């Protein structure tokens, strides 16, 4: 199964007594766009944090790009090729757009350990390039992002994932705070990524968006996966039934009851 990009097996995360994620089995293939849906607190972001090594998983296994992986920190996950837009935007307010785009993986002119010299010009150019590629328009990229609107900041975060060569893109509610125009823009970015057959995991509460963009829908409920639906075999009402708990797919039944 060489076209499986990411596979998680029995992925589990407990915060003390809170079982935020319980035995999640998940996989995504090349060129696929998989939506993750579920109510607030269902464990969607927790799932993302375990995959990207922002937190250490309680148990479970993850394979990425054909190899078993146990990332020690987020940088390893990024370097392996997982780009993520986190729900609580991972941006530094006092830095400008290029600084934020290249945060943690700055381009350097001159290698000198921690005192390596930054290549501001190259980062600026790559930023303009990346913004152009994603169709994001930011007035003045040299201003710090603290005074930008929520939508603009979101666009910066999304442009960041699209600027780097990656093997998997994860977006955790990328359009939650956006207006109509910006949402359309983000959706266009996702479409562009799909055209380049980049696999995308999209977490969203927006049914129309999910139906428009994704091929498959995985539903989380109370820390467990309760459904894995092909878009062609389901509809909005059906998905809602899984989200609310009215239905559970038979193959997930036992675990959900436990």
């Amino acid at each position, binding site marked *: 199964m060489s076209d499986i990009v990411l596979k998680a097996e029995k992925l589990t995360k407990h915060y003390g007594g809170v079982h935020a994620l319980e035995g999640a089995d998940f996989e995504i293939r090349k060129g696929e766009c998989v939506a993750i849906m579920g109510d607030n607190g269902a464990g969607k972001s927790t799932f993302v944090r375990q995959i*990207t090594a*922002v937190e250490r998983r309680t148990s479970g296994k993850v394979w990425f790009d054909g190899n078993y992986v146990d990332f020690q*920190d*987020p*940088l*390893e*996950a*990024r*370097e392996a090729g997982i780009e*993520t837009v*986190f729900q*609580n*935007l*991972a*941006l*530094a*307010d*006092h*830095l400008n757009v290029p*600084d934020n785009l290249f*945060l*943690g*993986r*700055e381009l*350097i002119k001159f290698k*000198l350990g*921690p*005192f*390596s*010299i*930054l290549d*501001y010009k190259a980062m600026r150019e790559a930023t303009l390039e990346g913004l152009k590629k994603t169709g*994001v*328009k*930011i*007035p*003045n990229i*040299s*201003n*710090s992002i*603290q*005074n*930008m*609107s929520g*939508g*603009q900041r979101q*666009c910066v975060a999304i442009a960041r994932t699209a600027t780097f060569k990656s093997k998997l893109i994860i977006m955790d509610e990328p359009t939650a705070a956006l*207006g109509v*125009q*910006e949402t359309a*823009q983000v959706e266009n970015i996702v479409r562009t990524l799909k055209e380049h057959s980049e696999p995308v995991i999209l977490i969203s509460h927006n049914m129309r968006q999910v139906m428009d963009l994704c091929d498959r829908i995985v539903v989380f409920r109370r820390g467990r996966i309760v459904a894995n639906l092909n878009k062609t075999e389901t509809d909005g009402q059906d998905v809602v039934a899984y989200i609310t708990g009215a239905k559970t797919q038979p193959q997930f039944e036992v675990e959900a009851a436990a």
Partner: protein
Amino acid sequence: MLRGGLAVAARGETYLSVLVEVTSMAATTHGIGGLTFDPKKRELPPELGVALALVLIVVVFEVLGRLLMGDSFLFNTREGASGFLNTARLEIIILQVSIIGIIAIGVTQVIITGGIDLSSGSIVGATAMIAMSFAQAGDIYGNPNTRAVFIDAGLVDLPLIVPLIVGAVCGIVAGGINGLLIAYTKIPPFIATLGMMVTARGVAKWWTRGQPVSFPTESYAAIGLGLMPVFIFAVIAIIFALALKYTIYGKHTYAIGSNEAAARMSGIKVARHKVLVYTIAGLLAAVAAIVLSAKNLTAQAGMGMMYELDAIAMAVIGGVSLSGGRGSILGTVLGALIFGVIISGFTFLRLDAYYQEMVKGAIIVGAVVLDQWRQRYGASKA
């Protein structure tokens, strides 16, 4: 800066004007969501405000001097003295702040990461004692220096490099312990460095059981001679101004202070970086200790007492935000100069030292209040 329809609405203008603005902006091409912007308008460097404050304070002392003392603060009024400016006073001001200024350079970086370092004054004390004891001369005016700490072991008249390395190690160890505690035990920097403040002061007293360490070698004394401290301060300021602006080290320092979670999620090794920043702060405190003890030709266990607060004050006056993410070395250098001008100005006006301390406290609080305002009303008004 950016001025969107929403911002206009928030300012309480009429619904109609908002509508007009939104529709008219929808036609512009240069901003998402119809935001307009003025490309020429860039954020002003916050150091500009600090520089203006410096000028203002000098002017105030000049005016007060003319009115109250009939003398000039800045210019040469004495008969026969050459030069236009009162260079003697300017030299004293710069010399006075340069040693604490060296500490402030390190403290600035710590504060930018969102931390604080209360231990620098005590590190100065401990380092001065320990380094100086390896820098003592074997004889004084032909008599053996019997009170040298290591005279029995024959460790006198050592080459300069020995006390320098010993001093550097002291600073690196103390700063490193601060950093390790803060990065890996997650105790607040305030507590960790408070512990180091008490411990290092203890070390300073224990080292010679309270006896001062005096009579350094000539080469050691040369470090504190004349304007040498100013020169060292300037070199260190330039090095770290460049490092903060042009290296990964600087970028990560700001990123951690601005949003630590974001820095971590972006893959920055936050713990390791914090250890580095606190270690550098410790090292710079040690440099200050060496310069200070060389200048005074003696080291005492109480040396550097309260320097940490002066250093923090210099940084805060210079626009370094105590909540992290903002500030610069240039700002701190200007802050140090403001600090020096105020002290010197008080002496010039022949005000008692008591008043100096009271006002110093007020200035520190004032600078923090100013910082809060700056946060609230955004960088656009800075």
